[in-house]
């Protein structure tokens, strides 16, 4: 599979492993969108790495046929950062859930937005911790009382990931919907193509712990057209209904790169330690 034949199909990017996901889980749509995007880009399988944390959504890498690392909860972004810095030849995509990305992983999200390494981050947002059987996540509504851990609901407004990303300096900010794999594939394709950190929030219903999210498909609507004006982007988010999809903001910013230096060898480096004998 090292040659990237022009006839490459989305299914060429899938593996034989059967997903643990509940039938009807939104994450199936995200898997489809991702493989579509990879096929559209015709990138060689061995040149793609999917990095994830822990959660239902974070199981995704194993269901693809590219390289992957299913790491620990909340740490997909640093792992992806290390890989992208050390191996700039790879296409690096980090994936995971809203708990993984915005609760335990919130700090890395902030810093990845700011650092602007060339990679793509796809968050499957179902406003719940699916894997641990349905607790509130940072994007859960203040009054959702579906978990006995928060019997009256989380009692605080949900985090708004697009606003955070914009405030933290991200240059590519989009929202997609798992129920629209083609539209989402398009966003992922553009995100991978963006030179820098591309963030895509994907509304991806959890039919088991948030069955009411089945209704999302009626509320989702396209709406964002890319702007490169941060002010404009902030203003749009002030009116955000949380269901508008599309690319909100795209602006190229300097990509962080390691310090460059002339080649040296270890002997010349060690020369500084040599004691100069007195004459």
């Amino acid at each position: 599979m090292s040659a990237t034949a022009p006839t490459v199909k989305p299914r060429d990017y899938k593996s034989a492993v059967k997903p643990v996901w509940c039938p009807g889980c939104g994450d199936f749509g995200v898997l489809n969108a991702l493989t579509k995007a990879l096929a559209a880009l015709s990138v060689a399988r061995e040149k793609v790495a999917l990095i994830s944390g822990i959660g239902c959504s974070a199981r995704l890498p194993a269901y693809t046929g590219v390289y992957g690392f299913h790491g620990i909860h909340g740490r997909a972004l640093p792992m992806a950062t290390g890989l992208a810095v050390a191996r700039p030849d790879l296409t690096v995509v980090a994936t995971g859930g809203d708990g993984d990305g915005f609760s335990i992983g919130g700090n890395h999200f902030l810093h990845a937005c700011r650092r602007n390494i060339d990679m793509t981050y796809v968050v499957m947002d179902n406003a719940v911790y699916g894997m641990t059987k349905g607790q509130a996540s940072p994007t859960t509504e203040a009054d959702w009382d579906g978990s006995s851990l928060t019997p009256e609901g989380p009692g605080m407004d949900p985090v708004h990931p697009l606003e955070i990303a914009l405030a933290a300096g991200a240059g590519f900010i989009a929202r997609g919907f798992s129920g629209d794999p083609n539209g989402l594939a398009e966003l992922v394709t553009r995100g991978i193509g963006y030179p820098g950190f591309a963030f895509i929030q994907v509304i991806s219903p959890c039919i088991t712990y948030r069955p009411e999210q089945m209704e999302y498909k009626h509320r989702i609507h396209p709406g964002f057209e890319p702007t490169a004006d941060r002010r404009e982007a902030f203003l749009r988010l002030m009116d955000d209904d949380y269901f508008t999809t599309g690319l909100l903001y795209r602006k190229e910013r300097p990509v962080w790169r390691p310090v460059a230096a002339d080649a040296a060898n270890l002997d010349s480096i060690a020369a500084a330690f040599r004691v100069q004998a007195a004459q």
Partner: protein
Amino acid sequence: MQPRSVSIAVTGSGGAGVMTAGKLLLDLAARAGWYGMMARSFGPQIRGGEAAALLRIASHPVQNPDDRYDVLLAIDWGNIGRFASEIPLHGNSLIIADPRRGAVPGILLGERPRVAEVPLADLARENPHGRANMVALGVLAALVGLAEDPARERIGQMLAGRGEDAVGGGLASLRSGFAAAAAVEDPPRPGAPPADAGERWNISGNEATGLGALHGGIRFVAAYPITPATDVLEWLAPRLPSLGGALVQAEDELAAINMCLGASYGGTPSLTATSGPGFSLMSEGLGLGVASETPVVVVDVMRGGPSTGIPTKSEQTDLEIAVYGLHGDAPHVVVAPTGIDDCLHATQWATGLAEALQTPAIVLSDQAMGQARAIIDRPAIDAAAASRRGASGPELAQYRRYAITDDGISPAAVPGTPGGEHTADGLEHDEYGTPSAQAGHHFAQLDKRRRKLALFDYGDRWADVEGDGELAVITWGSSTQVVREALDRAAGQGIRARLVALRLIAPALPERMAAALAGCRRVLVIEQNHDGQLHRYLRGHYHLPGEIHAWHHPGPLQIRPAEVLQQVLALAPRKQEAIG
């Protein structure tokens, strides 16, 4: 017989320039052919607090402080009380004090040392650009027997950039110092430098760690600053790029360790350096390294613990967390350098072990080694580092990342290898990496991960085993140099004993240890911490022969050779008695 060394403490308030004077003195002594070392001690003030440069100049290699200081030169007495316990004196010690700075504090006079007054400040003021620390340097250089001309040359070079006035002032002060020293009677002198001076290096433990990492093949570093590990990173940051490597300053230690795992998954040997608090944040990431079989090197430059503890002072206090601080059964590699020079070798070796064994390797350095400099013989550096077993040919048809192999090591395909596509996982998995909760898969993978460590041939590096006799002293890390000196002295008194300085803390190698201890009747375990962590570890993992004794005390006080000697004398019969 122990060749003679001279130990010198230079103290003063921040800004007095004691560290500059100390470094220059060490450098001049090295240029003149001596060995030596210098440690530093600081007060709690962020800047401008009191400081002490703690030197030892010798005709033989030294990397640990002696029992007591022969000379204490005080530019002033600022907060000397906080240091006094770190600078023990003896009856023939020489205190060089500036009479303008007031009387010598009583706390220093317990052993009735000699006091010589030198008006450092006044002498410095004789030249408008003079400096008291240069006077001090002159005094000390003269006392230990260094020639003035090379000293002038060095100072001239150093100050050249600051203009003629500065050079003039420095040289005038230096001369005054040399002159003033003439009045001091019976100066302590190191033995003559060895005739055969080969190439020597002046290097700190943290620099040696950095160089060892580069020699081991480390080309990616991600880290978060923390005392006393930051020097390792600051040394590496400008040098890695010239070897095609990169350093990322991470937002925290959780990010640092996971960045390293990511880069390592990409095939680039990776390292992070930290100290206790940061190390404790890496526990989960280290566990992922173990379960996903991803190599990574973590250098822990130990400082006083627990918690934030004593950030600027040394203690050998993270052995237990390094060995046991991961949840689940998570065998991995723990290596401890046995001295400043060994920071280079041990780090290089640890990198090779991490790569060869596809697992995290922890390097337990400490502040005492890391932030001290020593004059060492040019180290003989291993050419070849062990490397990661790749996957190729038939292995890539139906690739099994976690294949069960006899030696426990599975072929690791790195991204870019067609056919090697797989998902590395910290969930338990089958040979392909597919998550599995089945008992059979769990057992097979647990066993494989343990087996690869148990069957590996670590060669002779696992420990420095020296000497013979019925008493064995087992130690580790920076205490090694102290124990070695104590055993040299014991030998001088006709006492035979063995030294086992463990470099490979984990995995335990019971057969090697049994061979090293064959015929022993008593074991003494020496370390610098409060609870005897190595002692407990040894008892848990090894069958030690005979009586087991443990002696340890916590930092920041260094263990002194005389303390160890006393323990040895209590346990080891002299030669004639041994015969009886």
